[in-house]
């Protein structure tokens, strides 16, 4: 532990600056809330936004001297991969804070503890991706999860919200137990908790031992819970529906991206001997996940529940990308062009995570925008009738997000799906790709239903109406980005591919 890998403390701390700024900022927001009595409601959100901007700046300046650096004796690593996701998480948190503040303004009441919790959850996500040790991984996961449990229950006085928080907590604890058990077994098998050590031990094996299979299987269950993979998904609809809508957006994009990113880093570690073991079971689960999500989403009347099932389906698409990556580690034909296929697959997943964050967060942003207050969210789809006349910008933005979620060009959702399917085909998994396309077709129906309600049905008295301008402005910018990345995905996809390449090859 005393070994600091030949780097002095100051260098390490400067490399850790984004995390430190975020942690200190979260504590600061807490203290300001506790001490300053004459606080007006927008002060805390301003302060949180400043903190997040500070993190972004620290992360960005850190990228100037970007090179793979193992920090704190191998507990975390600073590489392009973590840099990429830090940016994503900061953006997600920025938007979440903006959306929430907008609703608080409209509501007239605000919850001060929301802000530090979002900041701590973001810190957890960032560390989750940067973790290169099982200890850090677990701590980061719990930092994120505990914050999110509270955020989910943040709508005090609402039975649904409390119930959701409770369910999420119980199920989350359940999943954490599996994860922890897996980590313990892995430690027993490899004799270390650092990725480097685990990786070395695994690389030295000819085939996977039973213990190793069990260990990684249990860890996979833990991750599967976070990304809402069937059959570990049951909490998703209830929690997504019960949580305040801005928190749902945060969970669906940030938490999911963090879990997938950490899973990819972990999968890379175990790729050589475990790809064969994981592949068939993950294949089945990916197919079931996307099919299940899309099928059940069809018969929903609550937009949040619909998006929850859609989020399950999207987990399936993401798993397809992970599968294409796993395929490169198997002892079959693909292995000869492992790097090409692997980079395509990993790059596609990274691209999709960014695109998914943009479009899903945007959709939840619009839901937040239309909500009257925290007790009356714009949840039932019927209430969207005639929105196109009443709130044209909000309706158009939501339409863009839904089109993108359905994967219709020229949106980022289409390009993202295209990259994923392309990678899957490259990995010689054509049937999987076809099934993915069939699923996307299926999904068009329920997304279009909302758009049709907005554009074809006349407005009624109880149709939703607009909220704060910051929210709709942020959502509008997101919609433009969704379209722009749909037309010109080149730069981002290049970045995603390079990022993955530096991490994995």
């Amino acid at each position: 532990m005393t070994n600091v890998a030949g780097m002095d403390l100051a260098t390490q701390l400067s490399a850790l600056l984004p995390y430190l700024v975020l942690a200190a900022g979260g504590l600061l927001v807490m203290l300001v809330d506790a001490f300053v009595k004459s606080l007006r409601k927008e002060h805390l959100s301003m302060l949180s936004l400043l903190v997040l901007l500070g993190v972004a700046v620290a992360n960005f300046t850190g990228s100037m001297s970007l090179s793979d650096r193992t920090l704190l004796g191998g507990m975390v690593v600073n590489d392009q991969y973590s840099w990429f996701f830090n940016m994503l998480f900061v953006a997600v948190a920025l938007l979440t804070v903006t959306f929430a503040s907008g609703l608080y303004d409209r509501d007239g009441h605000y919850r001060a503890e929301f802000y530090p919790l979002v900041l701590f959850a973001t810190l957890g996500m960032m560390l989750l991706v940067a973790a290169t040790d099982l200890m850090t991984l677990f701590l980061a996961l719990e930092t994120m999860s505990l914050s999110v449990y509270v955020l989910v229950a943040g709508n005090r006085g609402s039975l649904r919200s409390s119930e959701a928080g409770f369910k999420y907590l119980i199920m989350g604890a359940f999943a954490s137990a599996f994860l922890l058990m897996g980590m313990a077994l892995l430690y027993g098998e490899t004799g270390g908790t650092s990725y480097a050590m685990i990786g070395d031990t695994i690389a030295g094996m000819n085939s996977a031992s039973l213990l190793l299979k069990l260990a990684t299987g249990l860890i996979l269950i833990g991750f599967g819970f976070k990304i809402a993979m069937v059959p570990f998904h049951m909490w998703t609809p209830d929690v997504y529906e019960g949580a305040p809508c801005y928190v749902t957006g945060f969970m669906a994009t940030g938490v999911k991206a963090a879990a997938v990113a950490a899973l990819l880093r972990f999968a890379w570690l175990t790729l050589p001997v475990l790809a064969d073991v994981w592949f068939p079971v993950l294949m089945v689960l990916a197919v079931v996940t996307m099919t299940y999500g899309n099928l059940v989403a069809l018969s929903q009347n609550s937009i949040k529940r619909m998006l929850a099932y859609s989020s399950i389906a999207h987990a399936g698409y993401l798993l397809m990308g992970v599968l294409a990556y796993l395929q490169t580690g198997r002892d079959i034909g693909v292995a000869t062009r492992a790097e090409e296929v692997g980079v395509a697959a990993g790059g596609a997943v990274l691209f999709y995570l960014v695109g998914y964050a943009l479009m899903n967060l945007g959709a939840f942003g619009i839901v937040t925008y239309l909500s009257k207050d925290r007790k009356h969210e714009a949840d039932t789809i019927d209430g969207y009738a005639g929105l196109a006349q009443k709130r044209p910008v909000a309706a158009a933005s939501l339409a863009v997000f839904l089109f993108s979620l359905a994967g219709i060009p020229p949106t980022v959702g289409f390009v993202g799906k295209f990259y994923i399917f392309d990678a899957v085909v490259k990995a010689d998994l054509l049937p999987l790709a076809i099934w993915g396309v069939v699923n996307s077709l299926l999904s068009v129906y329920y997304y279009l239903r909302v758009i049709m309600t907005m554009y074809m049905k006349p407005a009624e008295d109880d149709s939703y109406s607009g909220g704060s301008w910051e929210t709709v402005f942020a959502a509008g910018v997101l919609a433009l980005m969704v379209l722009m990345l749909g037309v010109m995905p080149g730069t981002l996809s290049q970045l995603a591919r390079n990022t993955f390449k530096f991490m994995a090859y």
Partner: protein
Amino acid sequence: MAEQSVPLLLVVSLAIVMALLFLVLSYVLGPKNASALKSTSYECGIPARSSVQIRFFVRFFLVALLFLLFDLEAVFLYPWAILYRGFVEAGRAGFALGEMGAFVSILVVGFVYVWKKGGLEWQ
């Protein structure tokens, strides 16, 4: 591979078989003469007067939670204290002290927050 999993499989299947066996045995062998009295919660002893899920004041819960939190985190001081001598010998006492300082100050921030928010007041 196979040799490894055989004992495990044996144990798992034995457990399942045993559980099923006893269930089936009790079902088959047990006399079945149900009556109203038999389906009450206890055949012997005193009938329950109220719900088993008793209510207690939520403040207790909060205090218990806070106690658990700070008590548990204080536990971290012990391994640190034991290792500290090693740090001193390695000439990294400052580092170790700083680490613990950071840890404790985060705890203090939490404590101050609870205090200012009125979490420690009974009313």
